[in-house]
């Protein structure tokens, strides 16, 4: 029991917990900037470390070394508290997936995974609400408005492989068991179509969840400066940037494991399994960055219409079909 407890703490702190996630944040930040730069005929981070890999660390050191300015009369510590809590929720989520050496799993734990995924949005909304500015209020209103659209789409999409794996392969609505079995369904025609539809809608919902174009409406710099983050600078802004990259990192890693099994199909060869999982994560992040770098921004009602009229019905249809056939 004591051994189990130590393993559990080590998982939380080291792998796939906090340290692994921090490395993932740094790499994701570098990768997104590099891909985006190349798509825009630029070089991107280059001089700090090999291939500019250490540039995100330099940026974080710069932000953390600045003064922590908070408008007088407003809470100084609450934003950091909620932002770190959201980061903790995403760390906990990775402990429930196959990349964890001793994964946490139970029947019907998918509901807990979905709950953990909502925390970053809640933290960003609270952080925005805790500063006095019309821009932050408008930005936070946009975050909350979009949440009602994309969060539901993301949940419906993610439930499709869970339902399919539970009905066909006895996954018991568990995130871990779904990850270990859902990838086998790509060989069956109808489940493969449903998985493809839900993967598409999940990636587009992730695009909106991470506030990347065309859904960067809450932080539209030409309209509302930086939306919920307008009043933040220094260490708190560093936490916001880290949470943003962590959301993309964990989201891409989660989708790669949910739909393609992550390391599971090649579990007998751990090194190859790790490489394949990494490539799947890179591919999903590449798609998100590609859309981000090549599309203009929607207006808020355009994005809402797009989600309510097209993405939500599509993901709901996929879920209903996966429940009845």
């Amino acid at each position, binding site marked *: 029991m004591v051994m189990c407890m130590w393993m559990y703490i080590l998982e939380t702190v080291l792998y796939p917990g906090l340290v692994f996630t921090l490395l993932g944040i740094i790499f994701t930040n570098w990768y997104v900037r590099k891909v985006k730069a190349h798509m825009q005929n630029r070089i991107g981070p280059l001089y700090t470390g090999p291939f500019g890999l250490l540039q995100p660390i330099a940026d974080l050191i710069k932000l953390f070394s600045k003064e922590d300015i908070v408008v007088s009369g407003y809470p100084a510590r609450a934003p950091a508290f909620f932002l770190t809590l959201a980061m903790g929720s995403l*760390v906990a989520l990775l402990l429930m997936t196959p990349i964890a050496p001793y994964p946490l799993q139970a029947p019907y734990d998918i509901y807990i995974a979905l709950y953990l995924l909502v925390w970053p949005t809640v933290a960003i909304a609270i952080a925005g*609400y805790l500063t006095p500015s019309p821009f932050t209020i408008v930005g936070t209103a946009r975050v909350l408005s979009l949440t009602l659209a994309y969060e539901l789409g993301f949940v419906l999409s993610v439930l499709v492989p869970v339902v399919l794996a539970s009905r066909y392969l006895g996954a018991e609505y568990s995130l871990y068991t779904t990850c270990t079995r859902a990838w086998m369904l790509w060989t069956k025609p109808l489940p493969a179509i449903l998985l493809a539809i839900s993967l598409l809608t999940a990636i587009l919902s992730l695009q909106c969840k991470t506030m990347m174009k065309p859904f960067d409406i809450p932080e539209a710099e030409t309209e509302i400066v930086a939306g919920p983050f307008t009043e933040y600078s220094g260490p708190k802004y560093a936490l916001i940037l880290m949470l943003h990259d962590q959301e993309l990192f964990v989201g891409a890693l989660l989708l790669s494991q949910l739909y393609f099994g992550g390391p599971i199909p090649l579990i007998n060869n751990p090194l190859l399994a790790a490489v394949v999982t990494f490539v799947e994560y890179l591919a999903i992040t590449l798609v998100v960055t590609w859309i981000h770098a090549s599309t203009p921004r929607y207006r808020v009602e355009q994005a809402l219409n797009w989600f309510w009229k097209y993405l939500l019905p599509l993901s709901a249809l996929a879920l209903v079909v996966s429940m009845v056939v």
Partner: protein
Amino acid sequence: MNLLMLILYVATSMVLASAIMYVVYRVVSRSERPSPEKTKVYACGEDYTPERASASDINLYTAVWRLSFRNLYKYIREKGHTGVLSDWFFWMYLFMIIALVVLYLVSVTLW
């Protein structure tokens, strides 16, 4: 592992990771307080109170509710935001019960 134990483990790791990050944030951040001039609301050189610079929190919900569920929002806001904590808890628990009933119905249907 049963679901209750899983919730305890997940919540503990969430709190543990958050606590470490928060401590790192506090340790790394500069400890000296910024001058009062930097913490005042700046509005193009004019003196503004934070209250004047803020929009109403009712505006948080308008973008989506104005388009679709305005009457429902007004009803819930008036009933739930009375300033009495038990009213707020009642609405939160009501939402949780609705969610649990939906999840139960989905689970039963799928079973």
